[in-house]
């Protein structure tokens, strides 16, 4: 199975992110809601089996539309959630050119005759606007779509 992994600094290990609302091991970021804060995090795609390869992989931040916080209606009052696929940390310009909630294509992992169990990097950026009331938001997630194919020896 191809899953999203995060790096656990405390245990120096890569852990599978829990899925479909289980919330047992979610991706976690903390933001200062008073001033607003943007964080960038590196995540990974990894297959746990060399018997399968994956194509038509897409990643999408959920919810698709920006999430409004508080009672304000101006554009800055919305949480933005972006994904970029590349090996190195994206630049500010790259983030600016990426739309919040956009579906991002990922390259194939493995091929018809070869499985791939390596870690493959992608990045997420979350912006919490100034004036966001304190609390825990759990209605955000990353939707991973992929076509799983058996490796042909």
């Amino acid at each position: 199975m191809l899953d999203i992994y995060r790096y656990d600094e405390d245990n120096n290990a890569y852990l599978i992110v829990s899925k479909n609302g289980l919330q047992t091991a979610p991706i976690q970021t903390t933001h200062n809601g008073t001033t607003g804060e943007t964080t960038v995090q590196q995540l990974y795609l990894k297959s746990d089996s060399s018997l399968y390869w994956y194509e038509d992989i897409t990643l999408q931040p959920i919810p698709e539309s920006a999430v409004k916080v508080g009672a304000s209606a101006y554009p800055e009052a919305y949480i933005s959630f972006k994904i970029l696929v590349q090996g190195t940390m994206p630049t500010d310009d790259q983030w600016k050119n990426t739309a919040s909630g956009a579906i991002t294509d990922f390259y194939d992992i493995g091929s018809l005759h070869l499985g791939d169990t390596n870690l493959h990097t992608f990045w997420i950026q979350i912006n919490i606007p100034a004036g966001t009331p304190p609390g825990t938001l759990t209605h955000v997630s990353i939707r991973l779509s992929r076509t799983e194919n058996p490796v042909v020896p």
Partner: protein
Amino acid sequence: MARLVDSYDYEIKVISLDSTESLNIEDARQIYDSGLFRYTPPKIILSEQKGSTEIKEEEELSVKQRARNVSNEIGNMLEDVNVLLGIFNKRSKGITFQFDPEDLKNESLANAEDTLFGTMTGKITYAMYQKVLVLEDKIDKWLSHTAISNNGNLYGAR
């Protein structure tokens, strides 16, 4: 071949970090009781008893050092003042005071211009004004010198 779709969980924690928030007494007490912060007053070190001559020398050195420090500070301040005066002088070059030398009410002023500069144009430039200031300073010094030479009597010994 199977199409798979999953949503991976994300938890965003939003906290409020307001630096202007003040602590109430109860918060402060809890922080103090937690033992995170403790004030330890510095220990008083009793030095060896010194002789009175030694103490006097140290005091004199200290006074000299303090005088030197004050002198340095005054020097720095004067440097700044001179810079400001330089700027002021540059800007003031164009200032000219004009009066009508024929008008009787300006008689003394016209006479002063004549005595000091040998002209009666009714125009006092900033440069002329500065010369007058220098001259006034010289006159003051001369008068003081004369008074000291004559035991405080400006007009000569009686």
